């Protein structure tokens, strides 16, 4: 039997897909057995700690570690001298397109520290106390330099310069003076001037958003063990152990295959665990000390030296006709990505107007550096900010022409065939379906109480496929082990077991999925980009179909009929007509028992670079109540509607919707990096960097829309990232509805809301339509 590994499978045939089984790693996680990054030990293990810069920007005149090295119990000290000075900008294949040079400079400061918290040295000692004491004995002579943390200030000609060799790319001719602008980019479709001339109303606004941290509950943690023969083992919490392996091997100058990385259970990532920070340091310490080294970040270090996302300064202009046609959209996006190039401004620019079918679009983006920690990917990197600005302006357009905001979106929504400003023509997608579901949802009709307001917003994410391998092995009793190479951050193993069981026609409980180490499978891209359910699912399907093809061949030999005359149905090989009924079906367990006599072990595998990831859209409805005395905004009701293509495990799809929405609510209302005049982060802890708690939010209603992705056999689209895109604007639009005040700065924390309400009192009310007539 020839199997098409890409053949679609209809809904009627699904036995497992769409159900909600308990995850295979579940019991370990509710009993405390599951081993996360900091939960592993080795004999002779040392404790590592990192010395970090107290300055936002300073030249390192010298580092004297001799006193620390002499301290009893200290086994190794490393500085930048223990890492190669990489001069080229060679890019690593990881989600955020980082260059190796920047990675090594970020891992251990060289010449200058670029932000408060930048690592300058590390020690490994026999106890945490000794390690801590050793850090205080390392003498670093700093020459403090002027610093800049605000994105607009960093772009000024007189701003302190972080990198003397940073000459803005993307402008002609290349500037002859260095600046903090790493890159200028532009995305253009049509002619915006023509578009604005067609408009009856034009609205333009400036926006600013503060940096938000991914806020994963598990700080970065790893355990490194370097052996005398140059082979090394690394245990760490990461979204991508293959990219960790590749980066660490390069930074340590060893063969990639000599380093085996095992991904621990991972306590959240959201993009923040797609790069390396402490892992190369722990390996370098272990190599120097000749003993295993455990290195775990404190929460304070997580805030000061990992993540967060960009802070931004944005300008958006859009025009609309009286009958509701959006004629043009224009934006200037300035994203500060911390001390190194690589803010997600390009994705912000590409996605800014992606929800709309527009003839005229122009987006200019600036990738800006400042004295802050290097930005890491955060769930739909770059998109929530530009969506906040664009969706706020679209709300204003709707008000200007007194049209329902969902109606305006429906009139202008991107559809199949829409030419996106960033290049592609969209295939089948679910935006219109989410907007229609929102309009029909009882939430949208429900009455509001006093002081309450309602907002809607849509969001987009590209989704991704990428390099993926899986291996599927059938045991002697017919049960199956599935090895995947992507850390499971929210139920992946359950979804992959469902897919394997679906294909093989066996029970869900007969498959166990594990996350294999880097020596067990070929390269796998990182868990991120909303790629795992899609791409790993596709590989799992192919591996299962390879097994089925093999077994149908074995059955044909046993029965002495043509392989084309064997079909696989309901978990067994069966003779097809005209031999139907001539032989008893052979189940997976039957084949497993007879494996030795029919060709040996039964296994299937798949190595792909998955193409065909389907784009993703969602629409959110938010109700808020604003306390005009305190400025506190409370979310009173919230609904997420998103296209999943096909939901494998609806419980975990809903979980992605709910979790992303609440992260977005936190970003909208409370979360921000607060810097003092000294360039130091003032709120590096969960008390003062306040992520939402259970009492801050209501139940999050969800609607799963399923518009199949033609690029996947089941129609799956990634779902993880899109849910964080709409909330910033949905909440801001609700605040506008509740108070009449347009909040153009995030977060909408109580002091900012109070100030905006006060300022609005001094200005005579203009009514709903604030747009200028075009």
């Amino acid at each position: 039997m020839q199997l098409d590994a890409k053949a679609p499978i209809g809904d009627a045939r699904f036995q497992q897909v769409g159900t909600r089984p308990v995850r295979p790693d579940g019991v370990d996680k509710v009993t405390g057995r599951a081993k996360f990054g900091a939960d592993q030990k080795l004999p002779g293990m040392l404790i590592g700690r990192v010395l970090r810069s107290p300055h936002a920007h300073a030249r390192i005149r010298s580092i004297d570690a001799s006193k620390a090295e002499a301290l009893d119990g200290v086994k190794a000290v490393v500085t930048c001298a223990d890492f190669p000075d990489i001069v080229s900008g060679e890019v690593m294949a990881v989600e955020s397109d980082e260059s190796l040079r920047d990675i090594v400079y970020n891992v251990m400061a060289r010449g200058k520290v670029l932000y408060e918290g930048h690592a300058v040295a590390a020690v490994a000692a026999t106890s945490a106390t000794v390690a801590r004491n050793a850090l205080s004995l390392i003498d670093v002579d700093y020459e403090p330099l002027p610093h800049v943390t605000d994105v607009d200030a960093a772009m000024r000609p007189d701003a302190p310069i972080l990198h003397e060799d940073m000459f803005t790319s993307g402008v002609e001719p290349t500037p002859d003076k260095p600046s903090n602008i790493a890159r200028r980019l532009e995305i253009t479709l049509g002619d915006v001037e023509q578009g604005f001339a067609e408009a009856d109303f034009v609205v333009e606004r400036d926006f600013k958003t503060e940096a938000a941290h991914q806020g994963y509950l598990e700080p970065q943690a790893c355990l490194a063990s370097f052996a005398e023969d140059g082979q090394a083992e690394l245990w760490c919490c990461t979204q991508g152990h293959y990219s960790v392996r590749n980066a660490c091997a390069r930074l340590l100058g060893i063969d990639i295959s000599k380093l085996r990385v095992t991904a621990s259970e991972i306590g959240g990532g959201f993009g923040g665990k797609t790069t390396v920070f402490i892992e190369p340091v722990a390996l370098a310490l272990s190599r120097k000390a000749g003993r295993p080294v455990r290195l775990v970040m404190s929460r304070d270090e997580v805030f000061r030296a990992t993540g967060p996302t960009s802070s931004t300064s944005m300008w958006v202009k859009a025009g609309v006709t009286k009958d509701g046609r959006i004629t043009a959209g224009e934006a200037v996006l300035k994203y500060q990505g911390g001390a190194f190039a690589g803010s997600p401004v390009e994705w912000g620019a590409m996605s800014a107007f992606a929800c709309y079918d527009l003839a005229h679009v122009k987006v200019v983006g600036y990738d800006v550096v400042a004295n802050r920690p290097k930005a890491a990917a955060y769930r739909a990197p770059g998109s929530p900010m530009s969506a906040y600005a664009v969706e706020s302006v679209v709300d204003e357009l709707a008000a200007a022409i007194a049209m329902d905001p969902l109606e305006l979106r429906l009139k202008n929504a991107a559809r199949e065939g829409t030419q996106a400003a960033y290049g592609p023509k969209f295939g089948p997608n679910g935006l219109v379906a989410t907007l229609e579901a929102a309009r029909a949802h009882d939430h949208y009709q429900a009455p509001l109480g006093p002081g309450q307001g309602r907002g809607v917003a849509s969001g987009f994410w590209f989704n991704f496929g990428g390099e993926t391998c899986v291996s599927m092995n059938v045991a002697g009793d017919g049960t199956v082990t599935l090895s995947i190479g992507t850390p499971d951050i929210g139920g992946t193993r359950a979804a992959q077991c469902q897919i394997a069981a679906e294909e093989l026609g066996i029970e869900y409980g007969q498959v166990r999925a594990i996350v294999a180490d880097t020596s067990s499978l070929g390269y796998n891209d990182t868990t991120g980009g909303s790629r795992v359910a899609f791409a790993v699912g596709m590989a799992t399907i192919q591996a299962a179909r390879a097994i089925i093809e093999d077994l149908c061949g074995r059955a044909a030999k046993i029965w002495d009929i043509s392989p084309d005359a064997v079909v696989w149905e309901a978990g067994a090989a069966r003779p097809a007509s005209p031999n139907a009924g001539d032989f008893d079906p052979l189940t997976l367990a039957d084949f497993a028992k007879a494996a030795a006599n029919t060709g040996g072990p039964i296994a299937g595998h798949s190595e792909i670079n998955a193409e065909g990831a389907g784009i993703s859209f969602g629409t959110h409805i938010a109700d808020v109540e604003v306390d005009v005395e305190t400025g506190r905004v409370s979310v009173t009701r919230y609904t997420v509607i998103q296209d999943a293509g096909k939901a494998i495990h609806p419980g975990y799809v809903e979980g992605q919707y709910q979790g992303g929405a609440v992260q977005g609510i936190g970003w909208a209302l409370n979360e921000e990096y607060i810097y003092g005049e000294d360039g130091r982060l003032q709120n590096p802890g969960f008390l003062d960097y306040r992520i939402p708690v259970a009492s801050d939010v209501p139940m999050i209603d969800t609607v799963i829309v399923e518009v199949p992705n033609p690029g996947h056999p089941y129609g799956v689209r990634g779902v993880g990232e899109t849910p964080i895109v709409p909330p910033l604007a949905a909440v801001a639009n609700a605040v506008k509805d509740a108070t009449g005040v347009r909040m153009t700065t995030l977060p909408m924390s109580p002091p900012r809301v109070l100030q905006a309400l006060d300022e609005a009192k001094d200005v005579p009310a203009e009514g709903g339509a604030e747009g200028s007539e075009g």
Partner: protein
Amino acid sequence: MSRHVSTTVNGDAVDFLCEPEETLLDVLRDRLALTGSKEGCGSGDCGACSVMLDGRLVCSCLVLGPEAEGRDIETIEGMADGKGLHPLQRHFLEQAALQCGICTPGFLVAAKALLDRDPEPSETEVRYWLAGNLCRCTGYDKIVRAVLSAAAEMREA
């Protein structure tokens, strides 16, 4: 100078040595290999290290090891009774109330403490009781539902 401490952990008599500045969380994790309690912040803000100390819900990162002398400690490792999962554990699994799972032990210990004193909490009471436990993955919806449904099942039992 190490201190000798005698305690009860999950019903078993346990003795350990620890430094005066070591937290109970460090002792549980590093000296007793009970790594189910997690350190998310070390400052009592996230609840991932929640344990019961003489029947009272505490953040074990805010308790010193020597303070455990003569006390009764219950951790996540003691929640399943050997015959099966606690209803809270089961409902968390059945309702997909965890994604990454790092906060789950703390939530379960805290939720059990709530149900031990109030078998029929309202949604609002559950939300405020669990406000000391941070979860970044779920948005709390499924956690709150799991606690409410486990409570309902336990009342019927």
